[in-house]
């Protein structure tokens, strides 16, 4: 079954001394998927990525990429992957072009027309020394480096850090095109909005534990809405907390924010009976709110 899986891990565990950075991670990412790997800083995202790339070795458990064991076949695997490390660093004395040539030579060649096309789309300057580039422009060189070999699996750790919004959007388009060609994208992030926009599924990791894996569409279908209520006087939040479908109530003086998946009519009835409702806005909850709602307690 693992041969249809781009990435497969079984009980993957990594301890740094006594500190468990990654605990019993079981994960399957099928070929052709965009998988978003989410978690707060220090949750174990980078440790997981470095382990499957054989930069560090698991304390226990195993992992495979394209059906190949990540340690035994690490060299073979690396023919099939593109990688953007988190906190990307490159050789400051080389130009972008030199850097790409270097990595291309290590892989045995690259399609330079494709590289030029990528550089054009990301608006990257390859003639300057990497050390003289701003962090965003350096990140572009890192992204081109990962895409340029048209790998089967793209593994990227916080890839859009430093990119301006326009370039971020272009980068997301590139990832989608890439997946629609049947290739796989594994993307770690702590910015949920990005993952929400492009991922098929998301996994969330906390304190080294994978606490949930869900389809983005499934999460959305949980139909949680965020409701903002504005009143003409300060409000007692306790009144709302008992209501069916109400979660996560935040009261700030005249203003109430809540997550809600019940009957709107019931909610409105209760609040209008007690207070003068001045305004109401509602919108579909984003992943951040959904996760906070459903998973806050699980990994804490």
């Amino acid at each position: 079954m693992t041969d249809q899986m781009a990435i497969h891990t079984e009980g993957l565990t990594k301890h740094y001394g006594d500190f468990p950075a990654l605990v019993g991670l079981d994960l399957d990412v099928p070929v052709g998927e965009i998988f978003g790997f989410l978690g707060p800083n220090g949750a174990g995202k980078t440790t997981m990525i470095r382990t499957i790339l054989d930069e560090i070795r698991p304390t226990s458990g195993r992992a495979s990429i394209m059906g190949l064991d990540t340690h035994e076949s690490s060299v073979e695997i690396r023919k099939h992957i593109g990688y953007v490390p988190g906190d990307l660093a490159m050789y400051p004395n080389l130009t972008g072009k030199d850097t790409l040539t270097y990595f291309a030579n290590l892989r045995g060649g690259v399609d330079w027309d494709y590289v030029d096309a990528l550089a054009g789309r990301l608006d990257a300057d390859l003639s300057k020394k990497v050390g003289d580039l701003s962090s965003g422009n350096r990140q572009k060189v890192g992204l081109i480096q990962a895409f340029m070999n048209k790998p089967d699996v793209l593994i990227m750790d916080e890839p859009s850090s430093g990119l301006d919004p326009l370039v971020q959007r272009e980068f997301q388009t590139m990832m989608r095109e890439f997946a629609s060609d049947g290739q796989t994208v594994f993307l770690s992030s702590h910015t949920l909005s990005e993952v929400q926009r492009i991922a098929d599924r998301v996994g969330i990791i906390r304190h080294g534990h994978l606490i949930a894996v869900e389809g983005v569409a499934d999460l959305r279908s949980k139909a949680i809405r965020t409701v903002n209520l504005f009143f003409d006087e300060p409000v007692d939040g306790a009144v709302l907390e008992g209501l069916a479908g109400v979660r996560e109530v935040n009261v700030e003086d005249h203003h109430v924010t809540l997550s809600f998946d019940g009957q709107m009519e019931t909610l409105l009835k209760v609040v209008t009976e007690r207070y003068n409702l001045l305004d109401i806005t509602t919108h579909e909850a984003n992943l951040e709110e959904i996760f906070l709602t459903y998973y806050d307690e699980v990994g804490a």
Partner: protein
Amino acid sequence: MLATVATKTFLDRWKGVTIGALAVALMFFLGMAVYRDIDLAIYTDLPEALKALMNIPVDADVGALAYGVIYSSYGALTLASLALSMGSASIAGEERKGTMGLLLGNPKSRTHILISKAANIVLLSALGAVILWIAGVAVPGMLSVDVTGIEVGALVSHMFVIAVFYGFMAMAISAWTGKNSLASGATVGVMVISFFAVGLLPLIESLANGVRAFPWHYYSGSNPQINGIDWGDLTVLFVGIALLAFVAVVGVNRRDLRGQVTGVSVVDRLRANPMTRKIVERLVGSARVSRIWVKTASENQGILIFVAYVMFLMMGLLIGPMYTFIDETLISLTDAFPKELLAMFGGGDMSTPEGFYQLETFGLMTPIAFMVVTVTTGARALAGEEANRTMGLLLANPIRRSTVVLEKTLAMIVQALIVAIALFAGVVGGSMLGGLGMSPSRIAATTLLGTLLGLVFGALALALSAATGRTRVAIYGSIGSAFGLYVANGFLPFSESFAGLAKWSPFYYYLSSDPLLNGMNWGHGAVLLGLFIVLVAAAVALFDRRDLRQTG
């Protein structure tokens, strides 16, 4: 804030200073123990002129020899090296790490930061000096050697002042240019040249007064271990320190701070020039990144060029003509000179050109030159890429870790060969210029053995780098071992009971067969080559089995 910056720097550095000072103390102990065991008649019979040259007092005893020959030179060189590494890292180091901006985000001026860095150079040099002073007083007691009449305090005070002087010189260059390696390279250059000039110039009568141009003279010229503190000489150094401090303050305030530093290599200059761009682009622009070893070998160009230049010109070409200028009477005196004593400086009999070259060029400078290049590359090869966080990206390509280690090793060999060619050409040229008629094949043999010796310690740095991923461990570990093994090879033969142990030092297989006179010793060459191969194999195995470090 000032105290905070100073404290952080102090905590970053005190271990290195302590270890350096203790290493010298240990060497002092070893040297004094050997001196105690041997018949000192070989020294007392020396001609006066030579005794003066070697820092040996007229009524030489164990104590005077150990202080004069070992402590005053190695102690001061070590302390000054530590100070200059602090000085060069002071401003440029913070810029290189990108932390200077952060530091200056606090409400303190550049001058404030410079002062706190300068205070550290003084403080840490004092720490090293105190350790050396304690050892200088305690070791003779432990060995029951009488040291009456030796001014340990005066010697250590002079050491402290010369260390601060070189520390401030490096700091001034660092503050002025923002370039760490330029600051340390230039200061080391000045220090080494000055050290040798002070030893060498008095040999040539017409140039004897020239020593006054070199800072080292004001440290050792007055023989403080015998004559006590020379306030006149120290005043010269104090004035120098004050001037350098002034230059540093002006320098750091006048220029733009550097962001992340990108060095400009010779190739870059040629590439930027429209006249040469096309051909250079074709020749080296893309060639430079064609293989891992080519890219690695093209790095550290500054150090490589500097070392090759020094070995070719100053240690090679100029030594030949200089030999012909040296006072004939001095040369004839060396018949009485014990070979064992000269062995500490790499050996060599000054009455022959080969001996002179061995004493000046091959004995000490050649191993240092090779090691500067091979240890730098060996240490940076793996640990440097990890510290710079590029190793993950490199190893995301379909190449084995062993390939990376072997390609880096190849780069080290290429760099060592460049130094070897410069050295060989320089010495052959020097021999021709001076009409000395030395055998090119024997010069080649000596150069080859020196290259292999340098590669052994480069491979040691590589193995430490592979095992730990820490550049500092690799550099200090290999340089420290080289230091100890050099001294062991120089001193152990003095004592009959220890003489056999010298064979455990790689240095034994470099010059003990007198290759300049006898030609290549293939057995010794094979030992060095075997050691090199074993260390590289260890590096491959060690690097393959461990987790890569994420940060430096």
